[in-house]
């Protein structure tokens, strides 16, 4: 017999589907993947519809993913076509230790990509030992090898992640980004 009281705990309350705010938020998941979610208000949609001369459903909506080596140094971008009902996307970026920013917009004939919303900037984690070495904090190479080899033996495997995320991401020329 299951007490009614316990069953009462299973009511999930509905949360708002929209908050009435334009928003595009980017989150880091791991060295190779990001997650973005967004909300576009009707007024903002309309702007893009006017720009593209067609309704939201018929626009070629896309995410433009921009990659930076440092917070300022743009390495290029790529586009992901999205459907008009989507409000979130898992983005495979494929390169650890980089900064990313995403724009939501549409590919419009003769105008190219027209951005509507811009996200915050995030960084992917490094997936290997850093190549940056502080000379004041350097072990002789043979010692460093001994140290790191043993640690690596007991550490989590990054191999699996490298295999999963290893697909090459083709970046477009910087002037298109």
């Amino acid at each position, binding site marked *: 017999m299951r007490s009614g009281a*316990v069953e009462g705990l299973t009511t999930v309350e509905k949360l708002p589907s929209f908050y009435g705010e334009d928003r595009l938020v980017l989150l880091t998941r791991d060295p190779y993947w990001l997650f973005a979610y967004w909300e576009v208000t009707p007024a903002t949609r309309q702007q893009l519809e006017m720009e593209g001369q067609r309704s939201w459903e018929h626009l070629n909506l896309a995410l433009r993913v921009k990659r930076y080596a440092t917070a300022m140094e743009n390495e290029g971008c790529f586009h992901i076509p999205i459907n008009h009902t989507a409000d979130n996307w898992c983005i495979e970026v494929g390169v650890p230790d980089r900064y990313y920013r995403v724009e939501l917009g549409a590919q419009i004939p003769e105008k190219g990509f027209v951005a509507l919303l811009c996200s915050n900037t995030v960084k992917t984690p490094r997936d290997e030992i850093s190549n940056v070495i502080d000379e004041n904090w350097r072990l002789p190479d043979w010692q460093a090898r001994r140290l790191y080899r043993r640690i690596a033996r007991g550490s989590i495997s990054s191999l*699996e992640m490298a295999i999963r995320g290893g697909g090459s991401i083709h970046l477009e020329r910087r002037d298109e980004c």
Partner: protein
Amino acid sequence: MLTPKGYISFIFHAHLPYVRHPEYQQSLEEKWFFEALTECYIPLLRVFQELAEDNINYAVTFSLSPTLLSMLEDPFLQERYTAYLAGLQQLARKEEERTAGDVRFAPLAAMYRERLDYAAYLFHEKYARRLVNAFRDLQEKGKLEIITSAATHGYLPLLAVQKEAAYAQLVAGIDYYRRIFGKASRGIWLPECAYDPVLEDMLGELGLQYFITATHGVLYASPRPKYGVYSPILTPGGLAAFGRDPETSHQVWSAREGYPGDYLYREFYRDIGYDLELDYIGEHLHPAYLRGNTGFKYYRITGPDNHKEVYDRQQALQKAREHAANFKFNREKQVEYYGGVMDRPPLVVAPYDAELFGHWWFEGPQWLDFLCRMMHGQQYVEMITPSQYLDRGYALQLSTPNISSWGDKGYHEVWLNAKNDWLYRHLHHAAERMVALATAYPQAEGVQEEALKQAARELLLAQSSDWPFIMTAGTMERYAQVRVSKHLNRFLALERQIRENNVDIPWLRAIAAADNLFPNLDYRIFQSLESTVPVEKEEAGAGIGGIS
């Protein structure tokens, strides 16, 4: 004092989400807390106290999450635990009668009775229901170093889209610790060891001195750490980051080779709550007559299949002793190896979930007891807390830790995947609204202040890392959805009422009585960071190692 060849830092992280359901006679979720008390925290406290009574030198770090502390301090839950424990004691006596004369089972029934009687002694007689005082006593004796965590164990890297949300989690956790323990926490357990350099400014500003990361948090730091994870690094915010040692983690956690899976140890999944007739056991189940664990388990792991033999306590303890000796031996070999490479004694950082010890690994507390006794008086590997290590004054290398967590795959996926990613738009929206409220009403009084405080509590409760974790794990998923939707909707309603200056007072008082943690919470901790003056830094405790 002789310098040891190396150090080991044991860090036990104790945390449960805030679970308190006065609206129900019994709740399955409150049982998480009662079980953890009976099977983990009290047995560990017993070990720590007995070691102290026997003048054994040991140093262990214990992080107590603010939600767990709040539950330990809550009179309603103390009352409920009293009834729960009394019920188990009654069952223990019935079990002694039922097994009387059976040479295999009777000693086990007696063992459970003795353990429960001890729990009742510690809870009622020694600490008058306030087990927090047991931890405080051990801290004051210099045996335990207790550290805080984020207020409701929010997963900070994913909340930090609004810096104020992460900041409020940290401040509320630090403040609650200070109220309970009367001093500042020197370290912090970042929930799930989840770290992102965006947290650095806040951590430094709040006067914290150290935190723990997953192995690759320090191993993949940049510049490359000279000593790998065997010395802390100094982060840009001026804290020490201690990276987890993979070997000690593997020895305890590995499903295949880890100690807890030994065939002589107690089998977790054979419990009289499932095995005995409902007529006999039903009234002792929680909730009553719902099949579940009672903690009375009479079998050992035995082997990989379903055939189980009766648990032999003496054999299991002997095995725990062997495992403690093995652990000690391996640490000696480990520090010998790293000592040959490093120009300072290596520090092995071994963090564990406290709930592993006693609940899943029944013999875990005894293993720790044996280990501390074996390490007592030897100079080879010294037990040390992170603070004690920092006080030794080793220079620390300046380096920025890598984004990381101790979850599956090492990053944020456990808390951000198809099962729970919908949550973040709501959490971020609510945090943004809370920041706007706290900034717009800096001087609230009366009902308005009560409502703002409660809004802050509801938001903090919604932010617990436990909800997305449970959704990923797929067990009790519904409960996580209920909780998160309830707290968010309460927040949204309060936000609207505050804005409209139309607070529903009876309703506010009702939810404030139900979601009652952090009584002294200052909602202004959510104020926009651009409009506030940094909080005063904690008066310096011992400084941490210099940069060289």
